[in-house]
């Protein structure tokens, strides 16, 4: 996963697997792999396992882990790099044209712009 290091600019090998990121993650209840697990798998180059879990898509870059990581790793940048690796194959996580009109009707622009920036190619 040299690509993760290149896109994120972060040294994922610095992770010492303490789990502080997972402990404070506001999305932890719905994650199929914890942030700590993602850091481990990315250091091992296990792209397929990461692809099968929802974690990188559920991460909303809230930066709670980034301000707490004792090794100073910007974990949201690592998550973004992995999203980018999949999105750059031109595969969207959500398809905007399949979202029902009644859902989009009262969505502020700020929701749509941020969501489509993060979840579409």
């Amino acid at each position, binding site marked *: 996963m040299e690509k993760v290091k*290149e*896109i*994120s*600019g972060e040294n994922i090998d610095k992770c010492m697997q303490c789990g502080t990121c997972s402990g404070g993650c*506001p*999305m932890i*209840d*719905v994650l199929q792999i914890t942030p700590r697990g993602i850091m481990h798998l990315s250091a091992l180059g296990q792209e397929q396992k990461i692809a099968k879990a929802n974690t990188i*898509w*559920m991460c*909303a*870059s*809230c*930066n*709670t882990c*980034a*301000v707490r990581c004792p090794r100073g790793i*910007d974990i*949201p*940048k690592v*998550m*973004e*790099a992995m999203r*980018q690796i999949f999105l750059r194959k031109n595969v969207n*996580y*959500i398809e905007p044209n399949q*979202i029902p009109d009644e*859902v989009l009707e*009262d*969505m*502020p*622009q*700020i*929701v*749509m*712009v*941020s*969501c489509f*920036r*993060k*979840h579409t190619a």
Partner: protein
Amino acid sequence: MKIAYYPGCTLKTSAKNLNDSAVAAMAKLGVELVELDRWNCCGAVYSLADDDLLHQVAPVRDLIRVKDMGYDKVITVCSMCYNTLARANNLVRNDEEKRYTLNSFMEEETDYNGEVEVVHLLTFLKDEIGWGKLKEKVTKPLSDLKISPYYGCTLTRPRDIAIDSADNPRIMHDFLEALGAQVVNNPAGIECCGSYQILSNPDAAYSNINKIISTAINRGAEAIASSCPLCEFSLGKRQKQATEKFGDGKTLPTFYFTQLLAVALGVDDALMHFEIGHEKSRELLASKNLVGA
């Protein structure tokens, strides 16, 4: 005093209650927020990919407009715009190579080297007005109002652009106290509301929203104050769905901090646009004799 102002897209439509209350309240404090002659969407989220400079063009272009108008500071009230603009500004300031590439790419624009300071309105109120002076200007203190600040993510994280401590922010507490309100601390007030997952994975967002709302209610808050149109949409417009699905269904009104500022300074309440916010917001303030029913 005149100062450059970047509203952002949502403040011109579904969050005009945030825009109009901010502009009117600052006028009461003798500060004219001068909207940029030209501006574009900042992108809403800061691009975290190191090799993706294209998405930095939009926020940097906005900062160039500020520089072109002769200002060295720009005020934003939207938390997400603040975060995106301030981080893009730091990128330009700290990365010489990327600064060169961006300036070369935008060849028709003025060269930009990070001359502009991106300031959130709360920071401006703290540093340029001061809580003491703000308190003196209050004509309708919010004395009977028990309100809980909600900071969310983008005001206090990451550290290089944080307007206050990431773990124990006080700035909105101090602001609300200056308005005379009774501030109710909410430990979940620094947690993520789920952000744009409200569109792609609503249940994940509902669970977070329920936690934020129910903790505030359990601690005795009558309302929540925020500064982000995305948080306000989730915590205000979607709180009923969230608390019915994950909690006890109790709800409470939500406000933008600027609406409360405007109320306390005696601004005409038509500019608060309570009709587009939480359905109980006007009712709560009317019950405290702060606005007409």
